């Protein structure tokens, strides 16, 4: 967790540095770069939440849009880069929440089953 936070901090610093360096290049370049950085972070969070297994369609869409956002950045199409970054972020957040709800639902179902079995055992024991 600490490592993850440090990494996150480092990434944000890098993003800030890139932002500072490129600030004077174009009025649209800085916010586009920041949006892409935030989206990349969202994709990484989704992957560490297990989205690759639990929400493959959403995480694939998010990654695809990330790649295209980076290509747009390189081509200095900052408007398209921002649009793709915002969509990638929406996809990544959905992927992450899907993975989380799948895990919680599975755990909840398992616990309900455990509880049912336990109640049966107790009832059996009590009627003996």
């Amino acid at each position, binding site marked *: 967790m600490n490592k993850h936070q440090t990494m996150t901090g480092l990434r944000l610093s890098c993003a800030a540095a890139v932002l500072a360096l490129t600030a004077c290049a174009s009025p649209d370049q800085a916010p586009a770069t920041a949006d892409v950085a935030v989206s990349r972070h969202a994709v990484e969070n989704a992957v560490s939440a297990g989205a690759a297994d639990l929400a493959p369609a959403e995480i694939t869409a998010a990654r695809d849009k990330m790649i295209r956002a980076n290509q747009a950045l390189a081509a200095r199409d900052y408007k398209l880069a921002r649009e793709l970054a915002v969509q990638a972020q*929406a*996809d990544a957040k*959905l992927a992450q929440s899907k993975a989380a*709800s799948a895990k*919680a639902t599975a755990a909840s179902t398992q616990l*309900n089953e455990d*509880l049912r079995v336990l*109640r049966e055992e107790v009832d059996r*024991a009590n009627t003996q």
Partner: protein
Amino acid sequence: MKNRKSAVSILAAAVLAAACASAPVTTPTLDQARSDFVSANNNPQVSTYAPMEFKQASEALDQANQAAARRESLSDVDRLAYVAKQRIATAQEVAKAKAAEANIADASRQRDQVRLEARTAEADRAKRDAEAAQAAAQQAQAQAQATMQQNAALTERAAQLESLLNDIQAVKTERGYVVTIGDVLFATDQATLNPNGTSTLRKLADVMSQNPNRTVLVEGFTDSTGSASHNQDLSQRRAEAVATALGQMGVARDRISMKAYGQAFPVASNDNASGRQQNRRVEIVLSNEGAQIPPRAAMR
């Protein structure tokens, strides 16, 4: 005619243009996003567990709706609608996850409660079992003690009986104990008991009062001297005398049977005085506990 036709065309074009101007722009994605929004808005779990995500989704849908109202390009509307749709879905998933987590917490509490109840019930069962086992053990002990006391009483009674029967020289046989009232206990050729005879009968009467499930059979015998009828009569009178004496000593008459055999069943030779004396006798058979006395004929 031609003018009229062109006027209709102009009117149609105007209507078409007006229709285009007022028709709202929409896309399948925007329609889908609006429909998803209604579902999310109707899901109470969303307002309970994902209010922030739902607010962000609403804002995204507002942007898409505004773009549509401003008749922006379909691709721009579609792009904004897509973001809104994904955020609405995110709000649904977050609500689902939080609801599942709430259920996990609730089920965990219930599980702890059930386990606690199960342990309590088990402890109660164990306590009941232990109490039942203890009660059973106490009962068994009490029963064993009662049996022991009963056995001791029976042994004591048996010993008393043995001692009394010993005193009157009772002999144990298959028919029961046999007490012989010898000739010497009667007056010569008479059916009158002398004091020694009475004393022996009194001890037998004691035995009978202590053993109410026993009966007696009084059997009279003589030697072969004299006529058979005289002997039959004498044995009958002596047996009667004994039965009467026992009756007077408190033994119920229905417990006393009687039989006279005369000179039959000698126990010794009638050729000499001592043998004849042994043959002149009354035998009293004391039944075994609660049993019938087998008839003499069956023994021979």
